[in-house]
């Protein structure tokens, strides 16, 4: 029933009428493999510096939020301020269930997925009802409204202080090993998201996604059920973002809406997507690492950091080639790869 075929450049798996294929030709996997290898060995050199390890863990988490955002922006064919609402929803769901009902991390993961999926499904009609800037504005307002709610119901969400003391995903006994564990788990999460997004972009669904992003009316005229795709690409990245929040809750063991819901965090993630590579799948990784390093390096400057940080980013955007972000520096234009154009309004 299941047949495996080994070809020069790919492995084919046939199961009934279904066909799956994995490209194994070295020129396609060599570079990502080197990247993953480098990221995996970094901690071995910086083990004595927990602050750098924490910075890299943050970079991985930024990338894990930016990757679904890129997917969402292309799939819904509109720029948005990010699925931060689901970061808040996912974080508070798992934290509250863990603190008040004593749920362990696995059931809280299920609850997080369910809550994010339900809310995203409820809000998904905005992707095709709200035209132009309105959709972007909705995605901007919702996290800010939720932030207000966390202050309004301070007895539940603990406003500015946030929730603390949630049970950890793992505990190796030593702080140093825990930091290392956080890094590798965040790296795993980011790579998993990267793998899923890459698989999508290289499949028939990725081509459809690109067509919707290019011109949704023409795509519809070519038989694409645009509404169905838009709902999926709104809900799926929202769930992925919720899972990042669950991870934060059970590793850092503290969660406050004030950290993840305000405008500056939204802008940071949006910049990662744009500076990384205009929502190109891999772009989120260099984008996130650059932002994390710049942010951490400038922190020592004190309050002036708030002026220098945007200036550095504007400078970076200006010097990057063809508006293709950091990935454009590496990416040798290969036309079969779809390099997205982001649309603010239609």
């Amino acid at each position: 029933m299941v047949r495996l075929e080994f070809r020069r450049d790919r492995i084919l798996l046939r199961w009934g009428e279904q066909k799956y294929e994995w490209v194994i030709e070295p020129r396609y996997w060599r570079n990502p493999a080197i990247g993953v290898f480098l990221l995996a060995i970094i901690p071995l050199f910086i083990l004595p510096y927990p602050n750098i390890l924490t910075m890299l863990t943050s970079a991985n988490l930024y990338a894990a939020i930016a990757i679904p955002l890129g997917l969402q922006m292309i799939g819904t064919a509109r720029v948005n301020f990010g699925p931060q609402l689901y970061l808040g929803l996912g974080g508070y769901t798992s934290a509250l269930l863990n603190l008040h009902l004593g749920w362990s991390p696995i059931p809280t993961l299920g609850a997080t997925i369910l809550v994010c999926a339900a809310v995203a499904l409820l809000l998904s009609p905005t992707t095709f009802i709200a035209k132009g800037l309105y959709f972007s504005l909705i995605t901007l307002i919702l996290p800010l409204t939720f932030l207000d709610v966390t202050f309004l119901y301070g007895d539940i969400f603990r406003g500015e202080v946030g929730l603390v003391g949630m049970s950890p995903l793992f505990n190796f006994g030593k702080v140093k090993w825990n930091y290392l564990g956080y890094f590798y788990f965040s790296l795993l999460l980011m790579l998993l998201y990267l793998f899923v997004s890459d698989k999508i972009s290289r499949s028939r669904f990725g081509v459809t996604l690109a067509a919707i992003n290019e011109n949704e009316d023409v795509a519809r005229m070519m038989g694409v059920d645009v509404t169905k795709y838009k709902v999926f690409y709104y809900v799926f990245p929202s769930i992925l973002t919720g899972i990042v929040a669950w991870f934060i809750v059970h590793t850092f063991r503290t969660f406050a809406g004030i950290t993840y819901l305000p405008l500056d965090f939204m802008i940071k993630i949006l910049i990662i997507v744009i500076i990384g590579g205009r929502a190109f799948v891999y772009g989120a990784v260099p984008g996130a690492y650059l932002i994390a390093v710049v942010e951490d390096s400038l922190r020592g400057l004190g309050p002036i950091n708030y002026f220098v940080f945007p200036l550095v980013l504007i400078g970076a955007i200006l010097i990057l080639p063809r508006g293709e972000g950091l990935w454009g520096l590496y990416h040798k234009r290969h036309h079969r790869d779809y390099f997205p154009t982001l649309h603010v309004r239609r």
Partner: protein
Amino acid sequence: MCGDRYMLEVRDVTKHFGGLCAVNEVSFSVKEGAVVGLIGPNGAGKTTLLNLICGIYKPDAGTIRFAEKDITGMPSNRICRLGVSRTYQIPQPFYAMTTLTGVAVSVIHGKKRPHMSLSDAILEASYYLEFVGLFSKRDTLARELTIYELRMLELARALATTPKLLLLDEVMAGLNPAESSKALEMIWNAQEQFDITILWIEHIMKIIMNAAQQIVVLHYGQKIAEGTPQEIANDAKVIEAYLGGQYAQSGRP
């Protein structure tokens, strides 16, 4: 060449945009295998009618039947899957995609093919690109194509959905005479090879009068004439619409 079955039946279709009546109680039919021309001066409502047929707009009144199935107000993607495809007056390719992947989208979604992989779709798309003479440009981004190539890409994309009815919207616009004759030949080949019915909006009278077996003329959203090209060329109302009242009275086309 034409069958007895009606491929498209438009009955009393009306569409208003605010106070403007873009299409007013228009009725006509297209027989299976026929080439029907839709002509009229600028602003006559031709493209609006095409948009109503392919589901971009919903008519305010009237019915549209395709292959004896009511498609009035149906979404474009469902109409496409039933077998209606179109090209655009101003080419609308996916500019940042290669010609091959652009056509592959049509292959994947033009029919229900849930198990078709991207590589299979690419293989089929390359057939349509070869058909229109763009195979050598398969890895070129659509934004780098000439106007003729864009028109051909649109044709390939439309054919890749395996249509029964092809709606052509001023496919010759912007082409020089040599390109026009190549494009015309391509359309004939497509009709012969894929057995399609064509509803064709065209401003170049020489071409549409030779190509179509039946012509429908719109003016200010209303149908003013319908008949063979010969009948249309001698119709006083058509001459008046195109050239003004004095020509219609003098009988000089």
